[in-house]
């Protein structure tokens, strides 16, 4: 299973990659914003995207909408991991087609639980 972690903070990418490795997901790639992630997704296949929201120039929310509008990518499972924890954020993300939503800070158990909910039987 190949996972793309998208976050503008290298620290967070490193933490999520480490957690994923501990959870048994060894094939993890990284992107520092939505536009880089979109390029990577169009040139390579990923089974799951775990993305931050607040990034520049392209946010995770914009990435999500781009992915859902792309015929080749629209079925890719997408989890937002973000400090944006207002109701309107979650509602907007759901409408845009996010599969699950994790509020920062989070722990390994929460991450595993959300991955299982999005891709049952993995890990």
């Amino acid at each position, binding site marked *: 299973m190949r996972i793309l972690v998208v976050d503008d*903070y290298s*620290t967070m990418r490193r*933490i999520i990659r480490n957690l994923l490795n501990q959870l048994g997901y060894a094939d993890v790639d990284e992107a520092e914003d939505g536009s880089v992630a979109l390029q990577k997704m169009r040139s390579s296949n990923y089974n799951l995207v775990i993305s931050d929201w607040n990034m520049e120039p392209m946010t995770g929310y914009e990435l999500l909408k781009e992915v859902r509008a792309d015929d080749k990518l629209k079925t890719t499972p997408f989890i937002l991991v973000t*400090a944006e924890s207002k109701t309107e954020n979650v509602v907007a993300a759901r409408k845009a087609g996010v599969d699950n939503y994790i509020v920062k800070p*989070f722990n*390994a158990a929460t991450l595993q639980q959300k991955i299982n909910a999005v891709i049952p039987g993995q890990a």
Partner: protein
Amino acid sequence: MTNAAFVASDDYYDEIEAAILETPRGRWFLREYARRNQGADTDRVLKALHDLRHSVVSGTGMSHVEILRRELQEMSHSIVQTRQEIAAIKPADHPGNSRIMVATEELDAIVTATERATSDILTAAERLQLLADDLTTTGADQRLCDEVANLATHILMACSFQDITGQRTTKVVNVLRYLEQRVNAMIEIWGVEGVKQRLFPDGDKRPDAHLISGPPREGEGILQDDVDRLMSGDATEPEAPAAQAIPLKRPEPEAAPVMETESAGDIDQSEIDRLFA
């Protein structure tokens, strides 16, 4: 003809005037009468003016004039004070060292420093994880190895604070940059260049306040080796560096940027889970 029967009219007036004007004495009487009555009117006007002047001087009456004068004085004082306040925000002698700009740079430095420290902590935690794995393979107590690995994971997760605090700090930095733009606009409008700065009573009054500026920014200050050389007398005291304006990246945050923060209206993970159930 009695007073009761008399009815005044213009005809009577003309008739009497004509009768008086017929003789020199009558004409003299009319001129003198007019002169004396004119003088009486002038005296009344002068007396009224005197009363008016007296009331202004004594503070009674004419309050509108006094209020207007005081308002103008207060406005003038406020304008001077505002110019001084703005000048204090952006000192004329060190244009690159405005208080807002200094605060912004300090916050940028905090973000950089915490990012570096977090990276070091992460490296140590990852090393602990590897050591726990190595110890397991060498036959060490599995329970202890697991505990070390778990604690290393806790350390990793705790490092996510850097993401949150970094975003909060970035939000403050953007607000400061926005304020700086507005202050610069005010400076242009008010033209405070050269205005004498007001002394702030809440300023640092410690005798050595001029020596205290906190940790230096990147590229400022000296290294420990330099300190050692200075302490041992192997180096001479460096000359004071010229004031240097450090250029800042200046994004144009006209509208308040959307930031990741906790605030009223936030919901927790369990509530989000119910939305996705």
